[in-house]
Structure formats: structure tokens, C-alpha cells
């Protein structure tokens, strides 16, 4: 078995069997499978190894961890497992992919890289809401990563925006720092799982839930956030929430800007289209995880898709070797 391989970098092979764009759960899982088949595997990560999973406080729904696991620890375990079999992770960015028939060429921050196949697994990032004050106070009161920036709000008031799993989970995480949290939910019910909503109820001494409240503006003074202007849609009235900071979790936006040349087909919201074998509209280029159109945006699904993509990549390479 390919254990304890020497440490390599992106220049180790003239043509890699597979280059994976991203190093989140989908790509790292795929890499475990490909490297165990001695398929030379290079991953490019421009952000955090482990993706959004790594910046999630706690993961309770990933099978095999009966007590749950910290997102950062799960990401580290995935990385170690992939590297154990020889996956090479390059900290850099893929800028574009060109199809050259029997191989693909990737323009990257580490130079031009050639690969027989490509797996797109760039995942998604948290969306912005696009209200006044959001850009202006970014990182000075407006945040998208509770595990990174929550510590700056010890004994302070916070507003958390969103009604899905991330918003509820991160609001609960932030109670370890904040004195009080106003959770603004645009809809009239949570999209978060029942388990999380029940957990939220245990924190009602610190978290006030405001259903049917839009977030209209983030207002500040002297470079720091002071309050959020909201509308209570139930009664059509403006409300102000005094706060020291705002954490926003209102859904995901796919990381597909590097595919802007349009050769890999995207759906109407920018997710990568694939067939049932997870192959994109270009032969030899696959997609898996949160970036894929139809993905269920779960870590467990992403790792499963990564494994499936790896097996399809192996079949593609085997066919290519046999001249099919």
C-alpha cells in the first residue's frame, strides 16, 4: 500500500492523473480513493483545507462520530487520511481550465499544470445579503465566520442573520462569547433541522428569535457597528436592534468564478452541471460536493460524491490507457 510516501509538490509530475480543484470533504475523500489506486493526485486549495466544514464549530451529523466532532478536527482527519496515501495539496488557486483532448491544462498560481482528469470540488462560500453597511463594516462588525471572529465579542450584543442550519448552529456557538443575540429570520419558520431548533430553545436566555424580520441596513459610527435596521414583515414596521456585531449565514454561493469561460456548463445559479456519473459537459472533468448542481450541501453527501467521482475517474483513466 502507498503509505509513508515522500512529500511532493505540484512539480512532481509532468502530467498528473487527476488534479482536484479544492480540498474540502469531497476532494479529500476522492483523493483517498484515487491515491490508493496509485492515481497521482494533486489538490489545489486557495482557502481553508476542509472547506466550510473546517470553519463549522461542531458537526453532529457526520456518520461515525457518535458524539459529534469539531469541524476543524474533521477537516484535519480528512487531510491526514488523504495525505497518508500520497495526495499532494498545493496552497494556491486554479485560475482556468482548458480542455486539450487527452489532457487538461490548468492555469494556476503555481504555474501551468497538466492533468489527465480534473475534479471540480470548490464548494461554496456564505452569501452576502447585499444591504447598506455590509461591505463598509466587513470585519469591523460584519462577519461570516463565527469560529474565527466570535472571540472579539465577549460580553457584547450580537445580531445573527439567517434561519438555516448554519445560522442556528453558529448562533448557539456564539453564546459562549456574547451577552445576548438577536436572531433575525426572514421567513416565518426555520429551515434548520428540528434537532438544532430544539437545541436553540435551550439557549433562549441568551438568544431572542425574531421571525419575519428582514435585515435592511447595518449602521455604525466611528468605524464600528452600532445597530441593525430591520422590518417586522408581520406588522410592516421598522425595528432597530442595537448590536456590536452582525454574523450573516443566509445560504451559499458556489465558487465557480474560475469557470467563467463557459466551457464547463453551469446551471442558473452557477453550480456545475454533471451527468449521473458526476462528469461535467467536458469529458474527463468531473464535479462533486457543494459546487455540483443537485448537491444536497451536506458533508456526508460531499464525501460520498467524492468517492463516486474517484471511481469514475479511475474508469476514465483505465479506458484511456486501453485506448478506448
Amino acid at each position: 500500500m502507498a503509505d509513508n510516501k515522500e512529500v511532493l509538490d505540484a512539480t512532481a509530475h509532468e502530467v498528473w492523473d487527476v488534479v482536484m480543484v479544492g480540498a474540502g470533504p469531497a476532494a479529500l475523500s476522492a483523493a483517498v480513493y484515487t491515491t490508493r489506486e496509485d492515481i497521482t493526485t494533486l489538490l489545489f486549495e486557495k482557502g481553508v483545507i476542509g472547506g466550510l466544514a473546517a470553519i463549522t464549530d461542531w458537526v453532529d451529523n457526520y456518520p461515525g462520530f457518535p458524539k459529534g466532532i469539531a469541524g476543524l478536527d474533521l477537516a484535519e482527519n480528512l487531510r491526514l487520511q488523504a495525505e497518508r496515501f500520497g495526495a499532494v495539496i498545493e496552497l494556491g488557486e486554479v485560475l482556468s481550465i482548458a480542455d486539450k483532448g487527452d489532457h487538461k491544462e490548468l492555469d494556476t498560481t503555481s504555474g501551468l499544470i497538466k492533468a489527465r482528469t480534473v475534479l471540480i470540488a470548490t464548494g461554496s462560500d456564505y452569501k452576502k445579503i447585499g444591504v447598506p453597511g455590509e461591505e463598509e463594516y466587513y470585519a469591523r462588525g460584519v462577519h461570516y465566520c463565527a469560529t474565527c471572529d466570535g472571540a472579539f465579542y465577549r460580553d457584547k450584543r450580537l445580531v445573527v442573520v439567517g434561519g438555516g442550519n448554519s445560522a442556528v448552529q453558529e448562533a448557539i456557538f456564539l453564546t459562549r462569547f456574547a451577552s445576548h443575540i438577536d436572531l433575525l429570520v426572514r421567513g416565518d419558520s426555520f429551515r434548520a433541522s428540528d434537532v438544532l431548533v430544539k437545541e436553540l430553545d435551550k439557549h433562549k436566555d441568551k438568544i431572542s428569535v425574531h421571525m419575519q424580520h428582514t435585515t435592511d441596513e447595518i449602521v455604525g459610527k466611528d468605524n464600528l457597528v452600532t445597530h441593525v435596521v430591520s422590518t417586522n414583515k408581520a406588522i410592516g414596521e421598522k425595528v432597530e436592534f442595537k448590536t456590536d456585531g452582525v454574523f450573516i449565514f443566509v445560504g451559499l454561493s458556489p465558487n465557480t468564478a474560475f469557470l467563467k469561460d463557459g466551457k464547463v456548463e453551469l446551471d442558473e445559479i452557477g453550480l456545475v452541471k454533471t451527468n449521473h456519473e458526476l462528469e461535467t459537459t467536458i469529458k474527463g472533468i468531473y464535479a462533486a460536493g457543494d459546487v455540483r448542481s443537485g448537491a444536497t450541501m451536506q458533508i456526508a453527501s460531499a464525501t460520498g460524491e467524492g468517492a463516486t467521482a474517484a471511481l469514475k475517474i479511475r474508469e476514465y483513466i483505465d479506458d484511456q490507457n486501453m485506448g478506448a
Partner: protein
Amino acid sequence: MAKDITIFTTNTCAYCVMVKKWLGAKGHNYQEVNLDQHPERQKEAFEVSGQLAVPVTVITKEDDSKEVVVGYNLAKLASAVS
């Protein structure tokens, strides 16, 4: 060339892990200030960066000028330590 590098981090910050990993891979030594262990130094991190965010990497150059990089920004880090 960097003479000294200090990183302000927190326990749960994945981007902090990445900055440390990148600096290590490039052969740079650094000092870490963990704000969960030293909350009294949060003000210092805010004053040096102007932001309520980590990681904050402070690079002191040979001429004692300082460059501050907030977040995990490979391009800015590479330029700052070169």
C-alpha cells in the same frame, strides 16, 4: 525579508491554521498570540489591524517597517514576507 512574524489567532479559527501551515511550508518562523488564551491582547490585534477578525499576521521587515495581513490571503502574505 521578514525579521519577525507575529500571528494573532483563536482556538477555533481554521484560517489561522492555514496561515501557520503556509508560513511553515515556506520556512518562516513566527510567534503566535492566541486570543482565547490571552483575551487581554484583543485590543492590540484590533489596533494593529483596524479589524475585529483573525488571523492577523504582523510582518516586521528588516528596516523595522511593519506590514499587516488580515485573513488568509496568499497573495498578500507572499508579498509581505518576500
